[in-house]
């Protein structure tokens, strides 16, 4: 939904993330996350006690650590007791919950964080556990296989081909050379087919990382940040879970979320898209009607760093950070969850005129 006139204005006022890496086995999840929490608080000069609401996104399945999200709270400092919530989803959905909490007026500030430590497990297999447990999960179709089915459907439809997919990979990783947090950047060979038609270069790097964002309302946001990234709207939509029910070459959920978030009311100058696989960027560009005038994934996107459960929140953080530093006036951020872009969230962020 868009924020209606009279609603509270809410902005992203700070963003921090780890340097994303293939492994982080010298750190526990909270040890990996804590420096990011301190960094994002430091950017605003706030302490945990100044935060009215805390919301996080993570999945214990990634590292195989039960209740890791409660251990992660140790890094926040949960005394006196916090007003706190957690979603077993990408942190972008935690941000959505925090945004609605601020809209109600119950809170003026929120800390949103997300982390993913994929290195201890085999993430291709771990992600099969989110699939339909009756008809699909018993077949163990891994995340790359499902993305490859989508890529082939796009190729069959004439929407793309392997060279075009390679170009998507190259452009994102070239952009990532300017991103000190990116894991995979610069010239990366497309490599062999992992699951045809997808090559290793079409797939995101597997890695560990964390990110955190601070939201604030109204004048509090103006106090905390020289140029707040005002959230003009956010919406998220889900499609049927049956892969064979969906048209994999399109993303009606992204389009509807974008409409509801007000993305089509005026052009955006920047879009941060959460497309872990190259072919998914083709789908999203079409659904979001992005033309060549829009800077897409200046951070390098998920093809440059894809800490699962955090990569969507990072898209919002990257878009906001560009507004903070004056590199964008109106940006779209997108996050996805589930196989083949099953669920999609779109946020529209703006800076005040300079």
């Amino acid at each position: 939904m868009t924020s209606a006139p009279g609603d509270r204005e809410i902005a992203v006022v700070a963003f921090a993330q780890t340097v994303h890496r293939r492994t982080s086995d010298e750190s526990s999840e909270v040890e990996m996350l804590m420096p990011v929490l301190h960094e994002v608080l430091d950017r605003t000069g706030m302490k945990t006690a100044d935060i009215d609401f805390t919301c996080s996104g993570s999945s214990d399945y990634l590292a195989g650590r039960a209740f890791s999200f409660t251990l992660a709270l140790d890094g926040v400092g949960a005394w006196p007791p916090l007003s706190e919530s957690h979603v077993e989803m990408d942190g972008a959905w935690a941000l959505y919950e925090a945004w609605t909490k601020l809209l109600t007026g119950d809170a003026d500030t929120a800390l949103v964080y997300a982390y993913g430590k994929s290195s201890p497990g085999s993430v291709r297999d771990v992600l099969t556990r989110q699939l339909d447990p009756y008809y699909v999960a018993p077949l163990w179709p891994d995340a790359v296989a499902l993305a490859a089915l989508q890529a082939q459907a796009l190729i069959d439809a004439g929407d793309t081909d392997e060279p075009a997919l390679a170009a998507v990979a190259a452009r994102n990783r070239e952009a990532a050379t300017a991103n000190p947090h990116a894991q995979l950047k610069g010239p990366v060979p497309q490599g062999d087919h992992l699951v045809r038609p997808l090559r290793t270069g079409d797939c995101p790097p597997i890695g560990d990382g964390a990110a955190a964002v601070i939201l604030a309302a109204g004048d509090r946001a103006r106090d905390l940040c020289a140029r707040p990234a005002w959230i003009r709207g956010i919406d998220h939509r889900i499609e049927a879970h049956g892969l064979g029910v969906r048209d994999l070459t399109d993303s009606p959920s992204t389009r509807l979320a974008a409409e509801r978030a007000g993305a089509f009311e005026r052009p955006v100058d920047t879009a941060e898209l959460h497309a872990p696989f190259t072919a998914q960027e083709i789908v999203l560009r079409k659904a979001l009607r992005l033309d060549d005038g829009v800077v897409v994934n200046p951070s390098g996107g998920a093809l440059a760093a894809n800490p699962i459960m955090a990569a969507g929140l990072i898209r919002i953080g990257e878009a906001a950070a560009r507004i903070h530093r004056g590199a964008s006036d109106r940006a779209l951020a997108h996050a996805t969850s589930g196989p083949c872009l099953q669920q999609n969230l779109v946020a529209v962020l703006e800076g005040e005129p300079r």
Partner: protein
Amino acid sequence: MLEVLKAPLVVEFPFTRSLGPVQSAFLTGLREGVVLGVRTGDGRVLVPPAEYDPVTAEEIRDLVEVAPTGTVTTWAWNHAPRRGQPLATPFAWALVRLDGADTALLHALDAPGPDAVHTGMRVRIRWAAERTGAITDIACFEPYDGDPPQLTGNTGQFANPVSGIVAAARLDYTYSPGRAQTAYIHALGDRRIVGERCPSCRKVYVPPRGACPTCGLATSEPVEVGPRGTVTTFCIVNIKAKNLDIEVPYVYAHIALDGADLALHGRIGGIPYDEVRMGLRVEPVWTEGGRYPDHYRPTGEPDADYDTYKELL
């Protein structure tokens, strides 16, 4: 920097799931070699069938038989099959729209190579030799050029319908405990119990997890605690745990080691279970080759005064 510890960790669980009426009919049908779809309010046939219309959420129960033959709508070549997948040799993942259905079913397609697969190709179900009422009753699809066979005419009336499935799930991890717990485990190897102090509130956490949960700050200053400590609270265990060779009843206690600001827990031995009490002074008992204290036993000291441990309850 201490050597990073790693150990294999297997998370394994047989999920027992009950089925709704449509799922039950579909999976029972697979057991009997019949493929059923479900008709939606607007006349589409969903295969695999859902209990509710994915667009309107309407409850749908009108079962329709479809053919075991169909058409590939998209595919992907998997040259390196992974554990649990339908075939152990290279195969294509395929979405297949069965003849009579409007949606596609995901499964494996057995084909000699990627050049033998294309969207639009005709395939049929290869049934598993032994069928139990599960999606794996379809072994895979295989190329097939012939006409669809005659339908059986069954629309979901079966003897002994399946009411549930057991789906085994196993994930393999390489666990590493992180910096603080690695240091703790290394110290245990020398039969020392070492916590970490919060730089702000000065509390000593044992075992340390790297962060002070009160202040949200990294703990790093190592502090050796104990070995003696005080029972702060306890319970009497009367049920024997699986794979645990300890006679019941026994006492499990929270123990505040001297110098620690957080109680850890351990078993109390060397004293009848009904004589254990709050304030009892105890010390660890290490066994040969043990990597942590086997249990704690009384030291014989006078009991600790309540005021000395009341903040650690």
